[in-house]
């Protein structure tokens, strides 16, 4: 039971990370390879504010979110917008990887190479539910992920901004002749993605330790979860994240700890081969969905 709650908690955070990748992918069709670094910066800056400036948890995360929003907007302005038409130009692969490496190296200089123990929310307090000991921090991970996921769907489905995001993802040029500034919408998506990354980084850091290597140790799982759920499918991101969390949880019970990630990624590869569009593209889930449009 305890293991399942832990798996679900980690899975929720993977889901948030995948959501952030999906937000950008859906409007630009590009994968933000700097995303792992953005998550890491979110974790490291909030650690800094907590431990050096002795801020409370809430203020530290809020400031980390703001820093990440600005950082993500800068990444978009510098490494993406300047490239022009992304469908005809794949330089974004290099510019985004480059941005990630710059962030990693900067973090290494600023924060050092030593992994830091990141404090749990509520001091790691444990409560007992039906005889199972559950950390409040883990419950918060799940709760925060669900709140952000639901909020995002409401914004996307019900607001003017959300309608515009969906329009830009489907037909960027048509969106532009509606008077929508596609670049602005994409910039906003980068900002939202950065904010979500900061929260997910800060929530998972107590479990993984805060370090500049989070880019790879944690960041790579964001991509795995995004691919399992289907790139750009923001509901699928949650399926992908939770599945990845559960796969990891189960794998760590039956194989030695060192093999845990290998098993998760093996399963990711199998899912991608069998269902290239992610789990939600399986026939079971696409019944009655509108696939083609009339010309």
């Amino acid at each position, binding site marked *: 039971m305890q293991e399942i709650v832990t798996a679900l908690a980690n899975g929720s955070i993977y889901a948030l990370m995948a959501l952030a990748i999906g937000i950008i992918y859906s409007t630009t069709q590009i994968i933000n390879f700097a995303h792992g670094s953005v998550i890491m910066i979110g974790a490291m800056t909030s650690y800094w504010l907590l431990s050096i400036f002795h801020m409370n948890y809430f203020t530290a995360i809020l400031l980390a979110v703001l820093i990440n929003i600005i950082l993500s907007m800068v990444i978009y302005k510098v490494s993406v917008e300047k490239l022009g038409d992304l469908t005809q130009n794949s330089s974004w692969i290099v510019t985004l990887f480059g941005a990630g490496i710059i962030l990693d190296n900067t973090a290494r200089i600023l924060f050092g190479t030593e992994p830091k123990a990141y404090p749990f929310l509520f001091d790691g307090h444990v409560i007992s539910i039906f005889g199972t000991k559950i950390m409040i921090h883990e419950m918060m991970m799940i709760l925060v992920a669900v709140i952000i996921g639901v909020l995002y769907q409401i914004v996307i489905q019900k607001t*003017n901004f959300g*309608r*515009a995001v*969906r*329009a830009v993802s*489907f*037909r960027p*040029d*048509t*969106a*532009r*002749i*509606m*008077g*929508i*500034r596609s670049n602005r919408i994409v910039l906003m998506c980068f900002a939202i993605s950065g904010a979500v990354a900061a929260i997910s980084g800060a929530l998972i850091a107590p479990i993984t330790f805060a370090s500049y290597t989070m880019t790879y140790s944690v960041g790579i799982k964001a991509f795995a979860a995004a691919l399992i759920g289907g790139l750009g499918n923001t509901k699928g991101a949650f399926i992908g994240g939770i599945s990845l969390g559960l796969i990891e949880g189960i794998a760590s019970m039956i194989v030695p700890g060192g093999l845990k990630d290998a098993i998760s990624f093996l399963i990711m590869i199998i899912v991608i081969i069998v269902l290239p569009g992610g789990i939600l593209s399986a026939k079971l889930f696409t019944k009655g969905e*509108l696939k*083609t*449009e*009339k*010309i």
Partner: protein
Amino acid sequence: MLQVENVTIGYGKTEVVHNISFHVKKGEIITILGANGAGKSTILNTIVGLHQAKEGSIRFQDKEISKARPDQLVQNGMRLVPEGRQIFPQHTVMENILLGAYIEKNAKKIHSRLHSIFERFPRLEERKNQMGGTLSGGEQQMLAIARALMTEPSLLILDEPSLGLAPIIVGEVFALLKQISSSGVTVLLVEQMANSALKISDRAYVLETGRIVLEGRGEEIRNNADIAKAYLGNV
């Protein structure tokens, strides 16, 4: 209202439209005729700001607009109904119409325009909660036009509104354009369906491989059998 002067447009190194000039006066219906690949859509996309001309000047309401962004032009009263309608199939009909009013922040204006749109297109009101992709071709064209009318444009530009529609529906679309024009909107039309388009047009230009080869009153061009044969195929 719209003056296009010596405009050359290309994609990369390939020139598609060579040094063309034409103009649209307030209140007119103007048609640009041409076969596939003549450069019609390229010209329209350049006018609305999706594409940049290599040379020449485009003026709209006496302002140079060749470097303007699409949203600025929408704000100034220019609207394009794109080729193939390009409605958003996974947005509802209502959402499609509201997207058309994206730049309009005044809720009252949106509400009253919505009201007059539904008066004009009762079918769209019946189907307002349906996905755009479930509409028939003719209804999608109505939706594309309705969406453009949400900002009350002074110049409405249409890229082949008859494309892929049954003849009876084409008739309805052109009747609608005539009606929109008489309500004070200037209309610029690009078409392959020469006959129906020329019937409602004040003037027309004939475009062939990126050059304007002929211009005249709608009737004149329609009655000229040589032109019909040479440039328009069988009409």
